[in-house]
Structure formats: C-alpha cells, structure tokens
C-alpha cells in the first residue's frame, strides 16, 4: 500500500509526484500505457513555460518532469487505470494488466481528451486524413490543401505549424471572430498561406480510403459549400477525462471534477484532483503544474491527519532516495 497514488502524467500529475516524493511519500504514478506525458507529448516548441527562455520541446519538458519526479523516489507504472474504488480509507486502483494498487490517498490528474466533431466517417477516416495532431501528421501534407477546424489557441497553433508543409491551410470557424489569444491570432492572420472561412460549420467529411474534402454549412444563412482537401485537423477543444470517477466524485456543470474552493479536495476524503480535469478555463501547462502542487500539499496535509498505525503500513521511501 502507498501513501499516495497519482493518476496521470501530464504537468499536473508529475508536479504532484515531485512534491509528494520530496515530502517522503514515495508516490506511485500511473502514467498510462501510450498517452504518458499528456498533451505536451503532441506539441513541438513550448514557449511559455517559465524557466525556458529559449523554449523547450513538449516531449523534452515532460521527460524532464518525469526524471525530476523519479529522482526523488516516485515510481512510475506505464499502464492504464481501468477501475477505481475510492470509498473507505484504502483506495484501490485497478490497472490494465490486472494489478491492483492500494493507497491511502489518490491524486486524480487525467487531463482532458480531444473533442470530436461527431460526424459520420470522422472515426473511419481518423488516421486517413482526419487528425488531432498537426505535429504528428503535418509532414504528410506537403503541398496539399488542408483544413483546421476551430478558433482557439490550439487551432491557430496547428494552422501556423501546418503552413510549413501545406500549400494552403483553411481555417474553418463557426463564428466570425476567434477565441485565440492576440499573439496566436496575429501570427495566423499574418501568414499568407492561411485562409479563414468564417461562420462555417463542417457538416460532412468526404472520402473513400482517404479524406477528399468537407461539406460546409454557413451558420448565418444556411448556404452549403464544399472544399477539396487532403487533410482535416480538428482543434475544437477537449473534455475532462472523468469516465473513471462517474458516480464516485461530484462533477461541476462544466463536466470538470468539483473541488472545494481553491483546494484540490473532492467530495471524497483522501481523493484530490488537479490539472485540466478540474479546470474549465485556463488549461495551461503552468497552471496545471501549479494545480499539481496544490494537490500534493493537500494530500500531505490529509495524510498527516491519519492514525499512525495506518500510515505505518504504507511503502516508505527507499533509503537511497535523494533526501529532500
């Protein structure tokens, strides 16, 4: 049994693990089998994480966080959580290979998952021209026509990135103004390879084996049009990953996990939540990291209130672990 199990390995999860490990709590991190490192594994240059004046590659930033957590004694399991039992003083975390990990507290930091358009053929053509990761797939669209659907920061980032390869990047947005930050907007609007299609909604994705285009509907006057395309990159936001805790933890109206005020405390004692899974608004690597700190400190405080006999049963840090 552990003092604390951290579920998730993005900036929130790893930062919580760093703090918990330095507090001699020997945390176990369930990092996921293939999505470890979280969303930043799918980005290139991160320019706004403090402490890296020349920027840092997203995957490198996450590898650094992982090494920092391990240095202080965090142990990492590369598997997916399939079931959680959060009631009672001992929490149980079931993972994909059948193992069950027990802990006195849980920090839930599973982030969010990309939203889909919800169209026929979207899933079928995923990986065949429909993509959620411009940095992964952009290079295959050299000199091609591609579209980015969305109007936020990630849509502008994807569109700007795709101009390295594509002939033209069509930004399809259902409104006539962008939600993206001023910097990202200016960069996209100044790029001659980006064309904006305002007040347009994607109604169909066409294609046999590969994407061939999209059908659009004007959100103001309802007129239909179409665009011939080789690639469609979807960047319309993300939903908090809460399916594992439905019926166990209270959620907010926005679908994030409800926490008490500025703390990370959920409605279940000993269960804390951090990062994008509690944040409907800011969703930044740096805010997620800060949220991870809050969760680790809240968990530490909670553990201090437990009887000595229970704490003594938990895994203690290895002797060779760097003294905090």
């Amino acid at each position: 049994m552990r003092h604390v199990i951290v579920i998730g390995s993005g900036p929130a999860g790893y930062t919580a693990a760093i703090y918990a490990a330095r507090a001699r709590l020997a945390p176990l991190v369930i990092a996921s089998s293939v999505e470890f490192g979280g969303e930043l594994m799918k980005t290139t240059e991160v320019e706004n994480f403090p402490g890296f004046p020349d920027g840092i590659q997203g995957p490198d930033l996450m590898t650094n966080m992982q090494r920092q957590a391990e240095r202080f004694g965090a142990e990492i399991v590369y598997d997916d959580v399939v079931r959680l039992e959060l009631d009672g003083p001992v929490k149980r975390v079931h993972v994909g290979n059948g193992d069950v990990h027990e802990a006195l507290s849980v920090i839930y930091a599973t982030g969010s998952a990309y939203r889909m358009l919800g169209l026929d053929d979207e899933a079928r053509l995923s990986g065949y021209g429909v993509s959620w990761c411009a940095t992964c797939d952009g290079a295959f669209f050299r000199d091609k026509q591609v579209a980015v659907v969305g109007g936020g920061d990630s849509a502008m980032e994807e569109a700007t990135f795709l101009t390295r390869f594509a002939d033209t990047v069509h930004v399809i947005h259902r409104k006539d103004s962008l939600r993206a930050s001023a910097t990202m907007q200016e960069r996209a609007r100044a790029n001659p390879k980006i064309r904006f299609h305002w007040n347009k909604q994607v109604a169909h994705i066409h294609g046999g084996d590969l994407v061939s285009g999209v059908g659009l509907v004007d959100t103001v006057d309802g007129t239909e049009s179409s665009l011939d395309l080789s690639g469609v990159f979807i960047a319309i936001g993300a939903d908090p990953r809460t399916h594992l805790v439905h019926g166990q933890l209270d959620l907010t109206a926005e679908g994030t996990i409800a926490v008490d005020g500025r703390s990370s405390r959920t409605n279940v004692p000993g269960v804390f939540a951090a990062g994008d899974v509690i944040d409907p608004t800011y969703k930044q690597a740096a805010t997620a990291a800060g949220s991870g700190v809050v969760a680790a400190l809240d968990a530490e405080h909670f553990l201090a209130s437990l009887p000595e006999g229970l704490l003594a049963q938990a895994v203690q840090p290895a002797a060779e672990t760097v003294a905090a």
Partner: protein
Amino acid sequence: MSTAREVTDATFADEVLAAETPTMVDFWAPWCGPCRALSPILDQIAAEHPGRLDVVKVNVDENMETALTYQVTSLPAIFVFRNGEVVKRMTGAKGKPALEAELAEFIG
C-alpha cells in the same frame, strides 16, 4: 526508444517485402511524441513471440518515399506485411492489450 532495426527506402523491398516472417513496420519520426510511447510496446510484443512476427522501423523524415507509397498520413502508423502484401494497417498509439488483440492472427 525502440531498439528495432531501421529500414530505409533503399532496403525496404529486401527487408520487408521479401521477408519470410510477417513483418510489422513501425512508421515513426523523431518529432512524434506518441511514437516514442508506442515503439517500445511493439518491440516487446515482437520479443514475446519470437519467429512469429518481426518488427522494423521506418523514420519517415528520412524515408518519405516509402511512407507516401503506402499512403501514410498519420503517425504512429503500423503496417504488417506478409509475402510482400499489406495484411494489416493501424494508426494511432494504443495500449499493449489493444495492440495484441489487433495482432492476434499473427501472434495468437
């Protein structure tokens, strides 16, 4: 990172199309984060089934010709070739149990 053998545009025909054992090709690129996650899992699966399924990798940055021949548009992309033909094609990172299920006919 993956320890699988690198195959290039120049060696693809010999090493994959002419191979006697079904061969899983891992199309990847150094800038693809999900590829870093997937490659070691493929190595593991191949190692656990010696002689049934080989695994090789193709860096698409350096071998775009092969990637375009097989219409790869998304990374990571995993193909299985048997007797020179594509017999399985998958895209996106998946967990080990999901991959094993998809590859059941080759490793089962």
